[in-house]
């Protein structure tokens, strides 16, 4: 599949790769340069491959609250919330952002790789009166991120960027949206628009000074923040408690899918915990599925890994057994038959100076 910006990517030297069934740019000028642009100035990402769902009708809030881990009752109008869709076992189907547009109207942005599964799950759990629509094909979206994103916003919209994070505005009702959300740890916004307006918006963003950025920089930026990537760090066999996402799980809600499994898990010892690992030795970049050892014994494998462009050392995440998941725990990560020392550290890896 291709986003409406496919030709735009090729035109500026985008190097295309397959991602979740989509042909997406991994980079344009270079991952390190793009990463730095987002940390120090402003970058723009094509995120049109992501899914856009709408939920509306009397009972929409109650219905979503029965399916998602976070508490929508606590979410004011015009605000966004990170939340998680679970299976009955408490495992992660998808992590997503819910935007409250009206009292009983929500806009959801879900992972590209999970659109069919999320859509099927929500449809299967449909109730009378609540309308669920998967409108992923109707929309394109840009993520504009970085300390200078506000300047880019002003050039694009001739007004200041909303100062508060996690806000959402409908620019034209049901057609385009601006939200101060993102996946990089930087200030910025996401701009969702009709698919046929994507090219104009993309060119306007570039003209306003944003550096085009691909999936490569998106991955290193999010990993420095320890933001999980579904399919790598999250899975149907791991709960959000194991993933360290308890903050986004409201167990005080009377009922939601997976709650019983989470309560049972909370009452016992977690099987594993998703930990941040800092590589201490000079080592090749750590990548996903590298073996992790404690005292010479293999205990797990990495779920994500990279040489952090901002920090200059190796970083990774891995589900470690409870005995080995405390801050300061030493582990070894195997790269091509050699082991390099790493240590469990506090999340996130990267903090704004």
């Amino acid at each position: 599949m291709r986003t409406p910006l496919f030709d735009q990517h090729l035109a500026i030297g985008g190097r295309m790769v397959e991602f979740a069934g989509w042909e997406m740019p991994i980079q344009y000028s270079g991952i390190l340069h793009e990463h730095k642009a987002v940390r120090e100035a402003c970058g723009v990402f094509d995120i049109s491959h992501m899914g856009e769902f709408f939920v509306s009708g009397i009972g929409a809030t109650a219905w979503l609250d029965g399916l998602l881990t976070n508490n929508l009752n606590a979410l004011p109008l015009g605000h966004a919330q990170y939340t998680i869709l679970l299976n009955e076992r408490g495992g992660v189907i998808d992590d997503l952002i819910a935007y409250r547009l009206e009292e009983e109207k929500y806009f959801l942005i879900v992972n590209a790789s999970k659109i069919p599964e999320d859509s099927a799950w929500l449809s299967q759990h449909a109730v009378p009166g609540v309308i669920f629509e998967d409108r992923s094909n109707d929309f394109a979206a840009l993520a504009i991120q970085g300390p200078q994103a506000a300047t880019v916003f002003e050039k694009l919209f001739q007004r200041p960027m909303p100062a508060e994070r996690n806000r959402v505005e409908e620019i034209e009702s049901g057609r385009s949206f601006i939200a101060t959300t993102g996946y990089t740890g930087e200030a910025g916004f996401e701009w969702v628009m009709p698919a046929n307006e994507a090219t104009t918006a993309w060119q306007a963003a570039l003209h306003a000074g944003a550096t085009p950025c691909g999936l490569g920089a998106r991955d290193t930026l999010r990993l420095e923040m320890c933001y999980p990537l579904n399919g790598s760090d999250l899975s149907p066999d791991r709960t959000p408690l194991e993933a360290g996402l308890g903050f986004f799980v409201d167990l005080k809600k009377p009922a939601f899918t997976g709650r019983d499994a989470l309560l049972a898990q909370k009452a016992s010892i977690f099987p594993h915990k998703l930990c941040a690992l800092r590589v201490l030795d000079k080592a090749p970049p750590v990548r996903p599925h590298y073996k992790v050892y404690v005292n010479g014994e293999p205990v797990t494998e990495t779920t994500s890994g990279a040489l952090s462009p901002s920090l200059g050392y190796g970083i990774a995440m891995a589900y470690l057994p409870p005995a080995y998941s405390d801050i300061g725990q030493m582990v070894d990560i195997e790269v091509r038959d050699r082991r390099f020392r790493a240590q469990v550290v506090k999340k996130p890896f990267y903090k704004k100076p």
Partner: protein
Amino acid sequence: MNIPENLRYATSHEWILVEGDTGTVGITDHAQAELTDIVFAEPPAIGKSLKAGDVAAVVESVKAASDIYAPVSGEVIERNEAIEADPSLLNTDPFGAGWIFKIRIADAAELASLKDAAAYREQIGA
């Protein structure tokens, strides 16, 4: 695309500069551009004996690891430590400061199987 005339080239995108029985080996400008930002490089140990086509070194970009092959057989006599400290030299100066290792060429006849600049240019369609 820079393809110096004075070098010989392997199909796997290494170059070799021959001076007497010594060959200096690196990767081509085309290879570094394909690999993108190189963030890790590990030249071979001095004294290592290589056959033509053996994995001699590893370089890694942000996204992938790539093997570097010996274009000819011989013994490693020098390794470029500067690229361990600053792997981006492979991107910025692949035919100069980004050289990877020097080899004592065991059999000069092997050089004949390598490409000249024109043939390499044709291979990469430059």
